[in-house]
């Protein structure tokens, strides 16, 4: 199995303050990896380094096979990003949104046409293809946003709280889509506050004060911390420091 993300003592300091303190971890291709931590633990800083937006102070990291120091632009081309707030353009139609993002990622006209047809068919949006996105139910918008985050066939998709606040049925439809995508070899990197969302990941890391203090499958972590749920694991870890 190939490695999608590999870091070695990755560190970022701002003046005297160490936001990310020598984190080392590896994510496999096709894995759904949950990247957790309390508010202010350093998650956002770590992710910015991984997606090529912030240069590390020290340490190593390779994302999708590219070096975060020398190949930041190549990283950006090979990853997708979706956040809870990541908005599709509500005033553009489903088709126009796909075309827009396809264009941003430099897809050729023919590729965009094929991708649009594929996304619209997979999501069952044929009748809505020429309706504005603002008129779609939230669950559909979210699945469309996810599909569009993969319009350029990225190796890794980064997601920020992908299913916060949605109803339980929509949330599951969405996770099934994530499972399917991961099953086809795309790596999924999820950050979230929602511990019940974390339980859907194959493996999880938890950051406390800039360090990764725990890592493993949800099941391993629950055993290790003698906890019933990930919520309990998190509380024990963060409070116990």
């Amino acid at each position, binding site marked *: 199995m190939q490695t999608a993300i590999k870091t070695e003592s990755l560190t970022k300091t701002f003046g005297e303050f160490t936001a990310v303190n020598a984190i080392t971890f590896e994510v496999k291709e096709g894995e759904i990896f949950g990247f957790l931590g309390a508010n202010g633990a350093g998650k956002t800083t770590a992710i910015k380094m991984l997606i090529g937006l912030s240069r590390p102070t020290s340490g190593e990291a390779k994302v999708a096979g590219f070096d975060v120091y020398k190949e930041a632009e190549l990283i950006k081309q090979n990853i997708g990003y979706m956040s809870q707030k990541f908005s599709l353009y509500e005033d553009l139609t489903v088709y126009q949104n796909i075309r827009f993002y396809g264009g941003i990622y430099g897809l050729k006209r023919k590729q965009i046409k094929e991708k649009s047809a594929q996304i619209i068919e997979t999501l069952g949006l044929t009748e809505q293809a020429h309706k504005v996105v603002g008129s779609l139910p939230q669950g559909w918008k979210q699945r469309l946003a996810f599909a569009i985050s993969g319009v350029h066939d990225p190796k890794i998709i980064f997601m920020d709280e992908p299913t916060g606040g949605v109803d*339980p049925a929509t949330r599951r439809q969405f*996770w099934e889509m994530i*499972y399917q995508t991961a099953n086809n070899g795309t790596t999924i990197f999820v950050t979230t506050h929602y511990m*019940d969302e974390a339980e859907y990941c194959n493996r999880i890391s938890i950051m406390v004060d800039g360090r990764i203090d725990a890592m493993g499958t949800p099941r391993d972590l629950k055993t290790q911390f003698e906890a019933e*749920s990930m*919520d309990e694991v998190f509380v024990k870890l963060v409070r116990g420091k």
Partner: protein
Amino acid sequence: MASIQVDQISKSFGNVQAVNAVSFAVEKGELFGLIGPDGAGKTTLFKMLTSLLIPDSGEAWVEGYHTVKDFKKIRRIIGYMPGKFSLYQDLTVAENLDFFATIFGTTIQENYHLIEDIYVQIEPFRKRRAGKLSGGMKQKLALCCALIHEPKVLFLDEPTTGVDAVSRAEFWEMLGRLKEKGITILVSTPYMDEATLCERIALIQGGNILQIDTPDHITSNYGKPLYAVRSDEFYRLLNELRDQAFALRVEPFGEYLHLTTNDAVSEQDVRDFLQANAHQNIELKPVPASVEDVFLDLM
């Protein structure tokens, strides 16, 4: 008399029916939860109960006061923590609290006993501007500001959304202590796992209440065999189980699938099926239903 009495209340915006003929009652000193996703109608309901929106039809009373006719009285006896952080970002922690105490004609000293165990946690930051606080701190300050005039009823609209798990746990501990002081608490949340921390809950979706009861009653009345199941090939397992006639419902629940079957199959039948399909490292166990299982079933 109930502390909050809601009778067939409705509100629509254009052609969206946000709240549809909702009725329920909350007893004095009860911790009552409105559990439902974004868009369920929770916030609209809160705004009507706090006298900020006038219902299209139906009526509601808080501590015996009518939400439309007696709106001024209601505003003096309730504490309201809106879902969106609504304190003054440019005022410090202490200034915000002082402001809310003053407009209610009281002082921080007079009601300090109510907020003490919450306020001590944010006191080290009392000179910091509210806009610069972390999510958990903002939430604690907002709760202090909602409590400072000693309200009889607290309305908390999604107080734990966007807050990390540790702060959430602390917040619920605080609510438990406030309840002991006799304050009625109506709290909303999209987190199904928080439902069990309330005395009674209403499950709400699309403007309609699906069920009202204690969390225990709601989950124990699920009424169908439910299993947690997993194997090494999770996605294949999901698709194969979905195709079976005995599977009434198959839903991902974290690292397990929740499988609801009809009464005609036994645990052994399910196990045989999994083995016949060459699944590796099979785990299969009966589990009690959670609030989320019930919610999915009612939707």
